[in-house]
């Protein structure tokens, strides 16, 4: 049977005889020895390289976002899967749980969408405090939850405090989205008492690097992989301890014991038969 050949364009890569291509670059000639893991990660998500000073911001994000306590929920689930002894399925489980989740890397994508919504509403007037206040107030009236704000269990997000220093050190504090984040935060703090968190800081920094909202989430996920790997590797090595909790650690709050309709019918039938035999 003659079928038309199925084809699909790709910009990602090609396997050659003596040299490979990756997003338009010769792997051995142009990338090896010239590009870092961060640079390759950026290239994978954006499809283009970023200059080293921009990659340094990405490295700052990866470092300051490192809050890898195994009690933090996405990391805990990684640890639980790792309890069966394999590291990579555990790391993959952590990664699978993050896209579109309420916490974790995808919060940066949602925060980026929020920032873009404010940007669109403010237009060229983001440096007018009264107008910013009016726009943010209107947004808050329509949104009970605002992505990028809220710092559970503490007064402020210590990661953002550290990252802010990095941004200042790299002279990026006056860039558009970082300034917008600050302007919006001021009003949200005042009206809601909610502090900005690392999600909106990542969003602002990556939007200033030219990423789209979807790219923000993908890159943020990549920058958090080390934390999943840490829990996966250590959890797999520790093995069985978490596989099954002793009954005392679990409280059942579900349905009380009951008989199924078919079991009851069967019991009635048996009782009837017994009565007939008697």
């Amino acid at each position: 049977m003659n079928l038309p050949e199925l084809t699909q364009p790709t910009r990602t890569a090609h396997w050659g005889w003596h040299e490979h291509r990756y997003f338009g670059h010769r792997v051995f000639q142009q990338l090896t020895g010239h590009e870092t893991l961060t640079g390759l990660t950026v290239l994978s998500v954006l499809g283009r390289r970023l200059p080293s000073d921009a990659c340094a911001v990405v490295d700052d994000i990866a470092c300051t976002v490192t809050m890898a306590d195994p009690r933090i929920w996405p990391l805990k689930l990684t640890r639980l899967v790792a309890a069966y002894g394999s590291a990579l399925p555990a790391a993959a489980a952590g990664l699978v749980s993050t896209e579109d989740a309420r916490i974790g890397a995808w919060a940066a994508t949602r925060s980026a969408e929020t920032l873009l919504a404010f940007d669109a509403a403010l237009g060229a007037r983001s440096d007018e405090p009264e107008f910013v206040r009016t726009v943010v107030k209107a947004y808050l009236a329509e949104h009970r939850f605002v992505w990028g704000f809220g710092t559970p269990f503490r007064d402020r997000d210590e990661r953002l405090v550290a990252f802010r220093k990095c941004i200042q050190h790299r002279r990026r504090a006056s860039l558009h989205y970082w300034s917008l984040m600050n302007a919006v935060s001021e009003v949200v703090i005042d009206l809601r008492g909610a502090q900005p968190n690392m999600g909106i800081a990542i969003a602002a920094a990556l939007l200033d690097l030219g990423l789209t909202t979807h790219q923000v989430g993908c890159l943020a996920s990549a920058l958090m992989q080390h934390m999943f790997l840490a829990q996966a590797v250590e959890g797999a090595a520790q093995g069985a301890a978490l596989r099954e909790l002793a009954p005392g650690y679990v409280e059942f709050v579900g349905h009380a014991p009951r008989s199924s309709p078919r079991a009851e019918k069967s019991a009635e039938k048996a009782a009837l038969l017994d009565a007939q035999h008697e």
Partner: protein
Amino acid sequence: MSRPELDGPLENGAEFPSRLTARIVTPGERPLVHGYDVEGDLARHYQSSDLLFLMLMGELPSEPVSRAFAVACLFLAPVSVAHASTHAAVVGRLCGAPASGLFGVAAIAAAEHAHSLLDEHQQLFDWLHARQSPLPEHFRARDAADLAAVERLEQALVPTGVAIPALAERPSRDAALLMLLFELGFERREPLEAAIMLARLPSGIAEALAERPTNFGNYPINLPRFEYTESAQ
């Protein structure tokens, strides 16, 4: 490092329960599911599709619903390697992935497959809730094969006693199965997505296990042929 330096938000401040909460399956030697004794009751009187229904819906199905849900699961189950979900599992097998890794690939792919099916049919559920207009054209059967499949579904449902009036709208096979599940009580998206994913999962696993690990030479590596381009898309 001294202890005070290791203080943090989870050491001081927030209060958390000390025990995990079980809501569906009782922990321990003799498991109950939503209150029913699995080993002493359900295993004697029900089939696995009933247990799946109970797990997802919280109650055992009535007799007609039980039979119709079993039919739905059977119709949902076959997913050939032409579909990306099963195809991915087969490629996992080719890579020589261990069974657990392979099952993980199959489960993720089946979940994504179910998710995208429901995304594509969101408007169908709006229609099912309202039923004030004719079925949108893109949910209707596309060809004779589609119509024949829905006819077979109707025939299979006859003995169950469950009638699906919406099938008179001549839906596609996928739409008909979603109409059936909706009629059986799957109105919430997540249990519905779970039922579809779980019914389909064995296909991916079985097709993958039938492949030989590292059988790369017999895999059509150029299906599709990826055309590498360096120009911006």
